């Protein structure tokens, strides 16, 4: 039998032994402390990103309009592994309104599962982005509500949310000036990542202490293509002026690419959804043609 002193000694020994192991080895693999080179090579190696894309290549996009039955308008959007679902309802009366408002308001809620601390900031950003594109003057004293559920946040979640929300508005047949498209661009040193994944985002938000160029950061911008207007712009990090401007141009050109896709998708949806209306009109037209001939 061991006496108490021996047990105590054993525990002390064990503790000492444990103390000698760096605490990092107890951490799970994905949060382990890594050297900068390891971090970089994990994300970007030999001109290819971890998922095989080049730096200026977006991930594949999937859009489904009308994914929710209950909502007036809805859109499900996937960019790579990032998945968002957006529903739009309204216009309805603003609860607890204090005074008359000439312009309608857009109430935005972004949620993710599990709840993330950036949800509130995203809600705010989404509101800022959508407000200029929505025909607010048509709805004095009323509000529309946009709710976005981020099902999977694997980078560029805000950009996906903005694009999805704009498509959902169009699907709800609420008047908007233009379809809004949004893109995130990440910057790390002299590397520029379009549509970054969450790992790339983390890399872009960190910086290498000894590297000469300390440019790093993320830019999310949303853009109305036909009106040539930036409706939202959010940048964080540290950037030279010229680089910032160049990055903005790249972001805008990418927004235009997405715009073409969204337009096409929406057009397809309209054609199907308006089939009954168009069919009757076709019949009417042919009747008219018959009578004239």
């Amino acid at each position: 039998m061991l006496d108490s002193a021996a047990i105590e000694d054993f525990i002390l020994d064990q503790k000492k032994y444990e103390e000698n192991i760096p605490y990092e080895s107890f951490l799970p693999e994905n949060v382990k402390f890594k050297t900068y080179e390891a971090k970089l090579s994990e994300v970007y190696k030999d001109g290819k990103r971890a998922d095989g894309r080049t730096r200026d290549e977006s991930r594949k996009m999937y859009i489904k309009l009308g994914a929710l039955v209950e909502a007036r308008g809805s859109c499900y959007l996937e960019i790579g592994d990032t998945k968002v679902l957006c529903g739009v309802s309204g216009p309805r009366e603003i609860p607890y309104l204090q005074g008359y408002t000439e312009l309608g308001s857009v109430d935005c809620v972004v949620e993710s599962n599990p709840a993330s601390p950036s949800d509130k900031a995203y809600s705010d950003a989404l509101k800022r982005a959508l407000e200029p594109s929505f025909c607010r003057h048509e709805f004095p004293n009323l509000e529309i509500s946009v709710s976005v559920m981020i099902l999977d946040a694997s980078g560029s979640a805000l950009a996906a949310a903005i694009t999805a929300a704009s498509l959902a508005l169009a699907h709800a047949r609420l008047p908007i000036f233009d379809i809004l498209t949004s893109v995130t661009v990440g910057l790390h040193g002299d590397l520029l990542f379009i549509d970054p994944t969450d790992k790339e985002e983390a890399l872009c938000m960190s910086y290498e202490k000894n590297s000469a160029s300390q440019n790093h950061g993320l830019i999310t911008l949303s853009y109305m293509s036909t009106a040539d207007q930036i409706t939202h712009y959010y940048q964080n990090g540290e950037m030279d002026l010229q680089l910032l401007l160049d990055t903005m141009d790249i972001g805008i050109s990418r927004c235009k690419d997405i715009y073409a896709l969204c337009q096409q998708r929406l057009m397809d949806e309209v054609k199907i959804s308006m089939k009954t209306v168009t069919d009757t009109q076709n019949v009417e037209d042919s009747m008219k043609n018959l009578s004239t001939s």
Partner: protein
Amino acid sequence: MINFCVPGTRLCLAGDTHIPGTGTYERKGYIYSSLAGIVKITEKEKVFVVEVQTDKGQNIVPNPGDVVTAEVSVITQRYARCAIKCIRDTPLEKPLRALINREEVQATNKDQIEIHKSFRPGDIILARVLPIKELQSYQLTTAENELGVAIAYSDADAQMVPISWTEMQCPVTYNKEYRKVARVLPESDKVDKEK
């Protein structure tokens, strides 16, 4: 020929001959679409109105001057609360709250108006939307001959018949009740008036 459009599609030049209608807006000399749907061009007095027709959704809001159909929900000494059910000829999916102030019930004898002698909860009324400035809900007026109570039910659940400008009678019990009665126009006349 059917033209589909999505928000932001440039439809045509805006000018004296083409003006933007519902679902469109004008920017820098062009008419753009703000909705996804079918482009519809109708001629109205030598002017082409460019509109976008959609299959679903409703974007109509009461504008000052519009005639609306509303149901009275609450009456107090100073005002009557009601819910707008229909704007012009378009029924609403969701009712909107509105208010009729005592002074706005009739055009004459404004100081002698009594709300309870004009409306009762449950009445269906015709009213015109007033311009809103400060208040949160829509303001309505019934100070016209054509506006006021159109349909009212008596305690016996029978639809009452107007017998004068201020009275309606129940066809079952022959009870008379006070109302601000509307002169409901035949369908053809109403269209003329709105023009």
